[in-house]
């Protein structure tokens, strides 16, 4: 657990951080966010004493960080930054081994740890161990940077816009990957970014700062639902409703759907259909083939003529999709109601537009 109480940083006349109180539970992924100059990086760097606080107290697991030597403290805390800062004269392996070496681990243990970390971050040790930083792409370098921060298995990880310099595609894949790593390792993470989408995607708690003060500190859903003030509302953007949808899953909202198999025929369809609802056509295994509306059924000679066919892999929605993606699919295909399917395209139920709007 990290707790900041009354933490202040003063540069001459200006206060970069004003009497900040913040408490971060162990295993929590906390994102510090705000416009540039709001004091988020300063706050982060006061935790490992790269910047010394002017006033206030920072404790880690109940111990005042001022009671440690700064170097000793930093060796216990992982640190990753936007510009990575890999040492160009050291191989990937040596770079990752820096802190363990400073901590005087024995060689075999370091070697084993480096291999473990490279694999954790999906870098093949056989290929990457002996490479130099100049031979890595931006994404690879940042993976190594994260591996280096994790090297001595610190309980706490400080990250200052670690994915900020990457292109959108690489950034997103690294974000996903890092979330996977975090689910496995359960570190206490303090993560600085100015990208609200990144914050919403990664955080378990978000701390919004402005002019050195904490404005709101809450879970992402809560911030979207009830922003503390106009500043927060503006900061999370006009599309906050969409952002909130991105945090909700399809799972709890979809309901059972009516379906009919091809061989059951037109008559059965007419009996089963209810005014104002659709009927899903499936094959013998239950894979969705198309949909039938009450209107298309009147005057149709057989089931095929009454069916608008669809491809469940493109138009189907998965149970763990978020509502934002589901809505996007529905708009794209013009559905008021969309089929919810499993990986094989088998019909599980349906999701209606009104269910999304009520969520």
């Amino acid at each position, binding site marked *: 657990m990290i707790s900041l109480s009354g933490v202040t940083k003063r540069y001459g006349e200006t206060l970069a951080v004003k009497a900040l109180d913040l408490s971060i539970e162990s295993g929590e992924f906390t994102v510090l966010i705000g416009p540039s100059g709001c004091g988020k990086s300063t706050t982060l760097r006061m935790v490992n004493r790269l910047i010394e606080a002017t006033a206030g107290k920072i404790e880690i697991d109940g111990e005042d960080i001022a009671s440690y030597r*700064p170097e000793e403290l930093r060796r216990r805390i992982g640190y990753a930054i936007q510009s990575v800062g890999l*040492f160009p*004269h050291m191989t990937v392996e040596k770079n990752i081994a820096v802190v363990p070496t400073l901590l005087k681990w024995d060689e075999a243990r370091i070697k084993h740890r480096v291999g473990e970390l490279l694999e954790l971050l999906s870098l093949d040790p056989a290929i990457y161990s002996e490479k130099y*930083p100049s031979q890595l792409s931006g994404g690879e370098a940042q993976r190594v940077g994260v591996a*280096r921060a994790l090297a001595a298995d610190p309980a706490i990880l400080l990250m200052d816009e670690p994915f900020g310099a990457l292109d959108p595609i690489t950034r997103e894949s690294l974000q996903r990957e890092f979330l996977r790593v975090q689910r496995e390792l359960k570190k206490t993470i303090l993560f600085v970014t100015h990208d609200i989408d990144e914050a919403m995607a990664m955080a378990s708690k978000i701390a919004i700062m402005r002019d050195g003060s904490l404005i709101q500190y809450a879970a992402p859903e809560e911030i979207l639902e009830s922003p503390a003030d106009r500043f927060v509302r503006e900061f999370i953007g006009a599309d906050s409703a969409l952002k909130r949808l991105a945090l909700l899953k399809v799972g709890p909202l979809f309901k059972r759907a009516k379906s009919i198999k091809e061989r059951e025929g037109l008559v059965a369809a007419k009996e089963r259909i209810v005014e104002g609802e659709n009927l899903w056509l499936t094959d013998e295994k239950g894979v969705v083939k198309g949909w039938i509306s009450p209107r298309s059924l009147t005057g149709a000679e057989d089931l095929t003529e009454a069916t608008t066919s669809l491809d469940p892999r493109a138009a189907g929605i998965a149970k763990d999709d978020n509502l934002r993606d589901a809505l996007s699919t529905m708009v794209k295909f013009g559905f008021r109601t969309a089929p919810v399917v499993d990986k094989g395209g088998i019909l599980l139920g349906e999701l209606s537009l009104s269910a999304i709007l009520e969520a």
Partner: protein
Amino acid sequence: MGNFVTFHANRIVAGAPFTIFESAGTMVAAALLLLLAAIICASLYSGGGKWRDYALGALPPIATALLIYTAGHAARALSLDATPIARVSLGSGFWIPLLLLPVIYFDSIQNNEGLLAPAAAGVLSTVAVAVFFVYGFMDDLSLMKEFANRSDRFFSELSTHLTLSGVAVSLAVLIGAPLGLLAERRERLSGPTFFTLNVLQTIPSLALFSILIPLIAALLALFPTLKEAGVGAIGSTPALIALTIYSILPVARNTYTGLRTVDSAIIEAARGMGMTPLERLLKVELPIASPIILGGVRIALVQAIGLTAVAALIGAGGMGTFIFLGIGQSADDLILLGALPTVLVALIADGAMQGMIKIVKPKGI
């Protein structure tokens, strides 16, 4: 190759020029000219890939050795029928290729990957040239006659020269590197430090060397104990002081720039991971800056070797002794006896430092 060597009936009179064919004989001359033609063709022809690299890396040292052998051979041929006081000096037909061949050689070393063939040819040719000199092939050249008259003195002055420049640069590293480090850590100091060093560097060598003479004399008058400790107003003391002063700037400046070039993200990462300032300096900053710092030592060393030649004017000895003695006596070969080894030592020191930088330079940079 019009004027390959010049024949003088004695040390004073004007001489008669001889072409390479007239002096060295058709066979030797033709072999040398063919080799030179091949090198020139290879250097002007931009295709050829690997074979061109081999030719430009390996042939110039071989041609240099052959050129030197040819000169010795020519001098011997001309001296056969002459009196012992006759002199054979070298002409432009010898000097121009001798100057151009190393340019081609070093150019090819710097631009090509493979170092084995050029290095082997260089070592082999150096050994061959050494053999020519040691076993007397070259003894009939006037330069070698001057050398023969003064061989003991030559080696003692050479060792004085090397000691003076070596000690001065070592002192400059001991003073300049910490100074550069200090200037980098305390930016406020960098302005005044480099202003002072720049002004000192601007002072002409003859002026600085000679200004020190009355200064040290005054110091000795004030503190007679210094005199008892072996400090003199002329000779090696002022020379060493001046040479050290000149050598500090390149070392300090490159230490400063070298440390400056280390990316701030790297420094931040090093601090963030918990390196102490000393660990950061030794494990991160110095290794990354080392090629640039050594580059400063290289500049200082080459410069000091040249300036030491001037120090002979204030009685410090070294190869300048022969240069200024030769100038005083209008004896061209004596001038060459001082100037050529100075140039050679400077070139060797430069090459050695470049090689060392290549070896020391950490991989990945």
